């Protein structure tokens, strides 16, 4: 074989292989939208996928379900804990027609999964109250996180827990610093900063007064309600525009950024270096109910919780949730629904979920009278979680890649202010432009 002929042959082989790979990819995309079906409930075998960290918990729920209904079987599978890999995995499963029947949904990914035909609209089933599961029993703001921005009449997931931000405080550090003023329900952000700075100063920086409210700039559950409390907005679904550079938002950013180097340590872009509440490194931090078992296990100090501080009398509670969805491609949608109906009943999965100490049921009844309120202290002030769950402001997610653009732009703006001393108005003005550009592309 001559060199030229060899080259020609390898070129044609490359072309054939390339075309084959591409065709396989495109045809896989085409197949992926295949619809599912209702199937039968009794004798069903379904799959349920949740992030790896939740697998042990869900295996317990499934065992209880199978004990109650011996002729229904569920296999629990795991999804990556990392946010990016989690979406990636679901997309890959969709391309290969391997989606589970029930899957874990997360507020930040709900739009993407709905737009990608991965999750099923269950609005009609909830309206009908099929098997006793009604939409009206959920806290509307938490259920609203699973209404796709492109089709707000649809509901593509059910929240598992009403995770709202709450002020956690370490009484032992307060005592060590000689500070007697503990957080109160009437506290403002200025009170929070004043006491945080006092603790940091009196302990010579050995303890942080407060975990930085903005973290490395990624704490959306904190900045969203604060901007709202100042009369601003992060994203307006009506105009499809972001307002993170508007004067009201700039006031909010200024307030949030004030914590670095005063009530909280100086800015660090490395999240591993931030003071951890569970390790007794900070006197105060905003956290959620889901972290309570970890705090109980690792923090030996005396600690409790309080409702979030206010701004001009307005609550500044944010939050988020993960939920459960039925896959649009599932051939056992009725069996999947039957599991969800059992899971959300007070005597079913929700009872077990509350016993873990991680879950505040996302229903009015569950918040006020759930079994979680009877769990042993700490924390003693369980009412703070209940109040914050009701006050929580959960902003609408931005469509498509604009959500990620918002996250990145805010981190960049925070770093420009803290590391390059750019003015707040200018940094967040640029961030707003970047987000609006991403929103424009998302249209």
């Amino acid at each position, binding site marked *: 074989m001559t060199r030229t002929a060899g080259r020609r042959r390898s070129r044609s082989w490359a072309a054939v292989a390339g075309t084959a*790979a591409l065709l396989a990819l495109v045809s896989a*995309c085409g197949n992926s939208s295949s619809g599912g079906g209702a199937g039968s409930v009794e004798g069903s075998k379904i799959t349920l996928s949740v992030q790896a960290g939740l697998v042990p918990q869900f295996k317990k729920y499934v065992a209880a379900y199978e004990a109650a209904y011996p002729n229904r079987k569920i296999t629990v599978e795991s999804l990556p804990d990392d946010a990016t890999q989690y979406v990636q995995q679901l997309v890959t499963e969709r391309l290969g027609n391997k989606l589970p029947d029930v899957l874990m949904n997360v507020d930040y990914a709900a739009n993407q999964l709905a737009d*990608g035909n991965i999750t099923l609209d269950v609005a009609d089933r909830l309206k009908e109250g099929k098997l006793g599961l009604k939409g009206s029993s959920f806290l509307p703001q938490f259920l609203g996180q699973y209404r796709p921005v492109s089709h707000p009449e649809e509901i593509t997931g059910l929240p598992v827990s009403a995770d709202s931000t709450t002020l956690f405080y370490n009484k032992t550090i307060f005592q060590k610093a000689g500070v007697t003023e503990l957080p109160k329900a009437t506290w403002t952000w200025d009170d929070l900063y004043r006491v945080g700075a006092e603790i940091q100063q009196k302990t010579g920086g050995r303890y942080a007064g407060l975990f930085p409210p903005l973290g490395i700039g990624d704490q959306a559950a904190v900045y969203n309600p604060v901007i709202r409390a100042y009369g601003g907005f992060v994203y307006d679904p009506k105009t499809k525009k972001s307002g993170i550079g508007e004067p009201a938002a700039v006031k909010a950013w200024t307030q949030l950024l004030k914590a670095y180097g005063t009530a909280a340590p100086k800015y660090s872009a490395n999240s591993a270096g931030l003071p951890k509440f569970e390790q007794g490194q900070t006197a105060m931090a905003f956290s959620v109910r889901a972290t309570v078992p970890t705090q109980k296990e690792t923090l030996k100090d005396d600690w409790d919780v309080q409702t979030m501080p206010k701004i001009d009398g307005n609550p500044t509670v944010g939050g988020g949730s993960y939920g459960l969805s039925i896959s649009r491609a599932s051939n056992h949608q009725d069996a999947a629904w039957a599991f969800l109906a059992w899971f959300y009943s007070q005597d079913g999965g929700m009872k077990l979920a509350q016993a873990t100490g991680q879950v505040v049921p996302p229903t009015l009844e569950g918040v006020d009278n759930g079994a979680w309120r009877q769990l042993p202290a700490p924390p003693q002030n369980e009412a703070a979680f209940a109040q914050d769950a009701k006050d929580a402001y959960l902003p609408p997610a931005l469509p498509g*890649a604009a959500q*990620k653009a918002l996250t*990145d732009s805010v981190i*960049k703006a925070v770093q420009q202010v803290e590391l390059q001393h750019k003015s707040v108005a200018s940094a967040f003005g640029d961030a707003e432009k970047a987000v609006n550009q991403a929103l424009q592309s998302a249209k």
Partner: protein
Amino acid sequence: MASVLDNGTLRRTAPPGSGSDTRTRDRRKRRDALAATVFLTPSMVAFTLFVIIPALGAFGLSFFSWDLFGSPQWVGVDNFTRLFKDAQMWTSLRVTVEFVVLGVIPTVVLGFVLAVLINNKMRGMGALRILYFAPMVASSAVAAVLWSYMYDDRAGVANRVLGWVGVSGPAWLSSTTWALPALTVMMIWLALPLVMILYLAGLQRIPADIYAAASLDGAGRWRQLWSITWPNVGPTTILVTTLQVINFVSGSFEISLIMTNGGPLGHTQSLALYSYQVAFHQTEMGYASALSLFQLALIGLAVGLFKLLSRIRRSA
């Protein structure tokens, strides 16, 4: 008509002994070819499945716009023209070049020096060798997490050590000045063992009598190092440099992803990390494929350049 060459007459009338030699050589060649096929097939199959086909897929994808969810749309060469207009791509390319410049030269020089030192037959050298090779068994992801803690500005080892000599260290991973050098130091630490092994192999190929002759001529240690050792490990230096350029271009990906996520303010966002973020954060698979191909072309160019250098060196 049958040729005299066809019936083997020529072979039979060849000088005594050479006929059986040729047959033996042929048999050995066939055996070697068979062994090579058996040993190489599994790796070639895996390489084709997991590298060549996906690379061809990426090449095809670079002519499409695809957000992972919908169907791919043909956009021709738009992704490639966009690449050259993308300011972020140029920033990432600059960061990648900085990684290479700051990382490759110290890795090669340090690797050579350490290999020369541990090549000595001294007592306790075995233990020292193990110590130097230890980073090789560490996964880069685990090492990245550990080094993140070491670089912690409040409680990290780096600033504690500096504190002992009265220096107040910076917030390494939050500093736009120090983040990239900090990551480069960690990558050098990870890369050194392989470089040392390659140099050790190179050093052990230099005949001892050259050094003996040089000693007789009065050449001191430095003179021997500069005039005998360094030129004799030339091919190893070219190989090591090539490998390290590839390592610092593509290996910077997981390190900056874990330690800084490309920050602060994009100061550690290499081209590889940028293409990953475009693919999985912005879900622009077509453009990400174009970026990856661009990176592949740059690596190919660098490898080609080193091959050329090697050829010039050989002919000189």
